[in-house]
């Protein structure tokens, strides 16, 4: 028996179908501050909503609660010192941010990193993507009432964090890359453990997705809700899964490959309608593709150095050399006191991060400190569509919309 489902839900349809209410029943609009401390605003976003009953008539996002002035800070420290600050942009995927920043500066310095370093970076960035999407999916499920997903996804994320800790020494704020390399090579047996993680993760991922994909409640909350058209997505500069959910197949790993992404085979999932459900499907599929990339990296993991050995004025020499050899000691001293010597110029580099395209625009006048460093944060651009996307939807759908946008305020406010 075919059932005809109409969206949005019955309350909205009834409201739309109601004839003009008599004067004594007419109501006033209500102003509601949603956030900055609200579970569905994922951090410290505040939406200043104007409501007509349960329908949002206007939404004004208020940002800046987490503004730390990262760009100002960057202008006042050496290139190397800024690496830990990139952790704190999208703090759910610090490894991917580290990589984007390192590549931007390397482009400016015209520095090539060896194949092993590239492979390590791709591997860690894809692991970061899985961990970020797991958190995103779990929180999205939680927002629309599916508790269980978070329990499963956090358990998987924890396994990834164990691997991160083994590699970088930190679970969360990894600061793993250096300009011209990474801090250390992969530990013994670590690659095998990453492979083992992939093997056990795929069936669990299917299980997690099964909890949502054909779930009637989840579909009712997301299908046809928060639709962002292709034209709107482009006009507002959306990127990442949010743009792909609206049907634009922009993935910089494919379109403008960096760090050797051109060697790996993977598919770019795109949505058709641009609703919350499409964005969910895109993220789910991206995790499968990330596992595919990780397996390819593991299958042909290159040998050789994991830092650019010829970058004497940029990359710090190995610690044992610093302690035993005069030349390296001086080199390290110069790097610490003056910073890596970067030639004058401008560079704009964007990397495909879990939340979207993270860009760094760096202006150098030579020396060890950037003259201007602009961070193009994907969450900031993605959220800029909210005043439009929230218009005329139900307040409960705002929660679903926010969940499906998967933003991080640390990155949005910088």
């Amino acid at each position: 028996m075919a059932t005809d489902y109409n969206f949005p839900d019955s309350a909205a349809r009834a409201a739309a179908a109601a004839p003009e209410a008599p004067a004594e029943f007419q109501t006033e609009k209500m102003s509601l501050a949603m956030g900055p401390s609200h579970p569905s605003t994922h951090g410290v976003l505040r939406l200043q909503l104007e409501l007509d009953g349960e329908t949002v008539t206007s939404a004004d996002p208020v940002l800046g609660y987490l503004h730390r002035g990262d760009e100002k800070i960057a202008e006042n420290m050496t290139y190397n010192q800024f690496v830990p600050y990139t952790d704190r942009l999208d703090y759910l995927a610090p490894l991917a941010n580290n990589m984007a920043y390192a590549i931007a500066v390397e482009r400016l310095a015209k520095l090539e990193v060896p194949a092993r370093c590239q492979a390590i970076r791709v591997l860690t960035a894809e692991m970061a993507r899985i961990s970020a999407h797991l958190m995103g999916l779990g929180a999205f499920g939680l927002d629309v009432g599916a508790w269980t997903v978070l329990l499963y996804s956090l358990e998987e994320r924890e396994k990834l964090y164990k691997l991160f800790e083994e590699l970088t020494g930190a679970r969360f704020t990894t600061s793993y890359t250096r300009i011209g390399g990474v801090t250390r090579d992969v530990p013994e047996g670590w690659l095998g453990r990453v492979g083992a993680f992939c093997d056990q993760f795929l069936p669990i991922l299917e299980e997690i997705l099964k909890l949502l994909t054909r779930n009637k409640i989840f579909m009712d909350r997301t299908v046809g809700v928060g639709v962002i058209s292709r034209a709107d997505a482009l006009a507002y500069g959306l990127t990442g899964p949010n743009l792909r959910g609206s049907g634009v197949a922009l993935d910089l790993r494919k379109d403008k490959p960096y760090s050797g992404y051109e060697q790996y085979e993977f598919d770019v999932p795109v949505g058709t309608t641009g609703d919350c459900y499409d964005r969910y499907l895109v993220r789910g599929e991206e995790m499968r593709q990330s596992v595919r990339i990780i397996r390819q990296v593991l299958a042909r993991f290159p040998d050789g150095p994991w830092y650019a050995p010829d970058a004497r004025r940029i990359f710090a020499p190995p610690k044992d050399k610093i302690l035993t050899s005069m030349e390296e000691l001086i080199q390290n001293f110069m790097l610490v006191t003056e910073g890596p010597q970067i030639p004058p110029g401008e560079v704009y580099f964007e990397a495909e991060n879990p939340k979207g395209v993270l860009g760094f625009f760096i202006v150098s006048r030579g020396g060890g400190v950037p003259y201007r460093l602009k961070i193009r944060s994907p969450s900031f651009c993605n959220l800029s569509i909210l005043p439009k996307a929230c218009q005329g939807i139900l307040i409960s759908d705002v929660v679903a919309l926010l969940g499906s946008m998967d933003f991080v305020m640390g990155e949005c406010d910088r």
Partner: protein
Amino acid sequence: MSADLVSTLQARFPRLAPRPSGDHPAVNAPLEDVVPLLRCLRDEHGFDLLTDLTAIDWSPGASPRYTVVYHLLSTSRAGAYVRVAAPCAGTEEAPVAPSVTSLWAGADWHERECFDLMGVRFEGHPDLRRILMWDGYPYHPLRKDFPLAGIETELPAEDVAAETGTRVVAAPMAGGPFVASPGEINLTEAEPRAKDESWSDRAPQPGHTPLRLVKE
């Protein structure tokens, strides 16, 4: 391709100059050409995504002092970028640039951010107000003459301050925990536990008499 694009654009907009660039095609444009140039890039060259909009402060006294920089990305032509830079008009205190919100709705927030942090007024912007700092904040922190440590400012809650008569001062920079200006106070003293003497035997709490052993 990069030289191609720049020369095609130069044929159309004769006042364009190529901008030295190591990565993407880049042009310097006069301010009046920015909107038609970006429209041309969007409609005729497929650069459909305004990915970044920012400004550079070339430090006080420089001419031009501010340059606005646009980065466009093409979703149809596999990862092609273009950079457009234009010197701002106006004074050092109030630089001016045209708004491109008519071309990309997403320029709205970028321009608000640029106004907030750099003080560039975008003419034609529908609602140019601060976005990261609060309304009423008096400075533009990304300018080169703004100190890294910040400037002590009254906090935004004007109505609260007016009602209660309290002066609300921004949370700690000078004198706050872990913050010390040279010659004023040393870090050991600024450390919170050093300020809070309640736990230490150096300064007993008022009203509290230390235990004494009294010999009978």
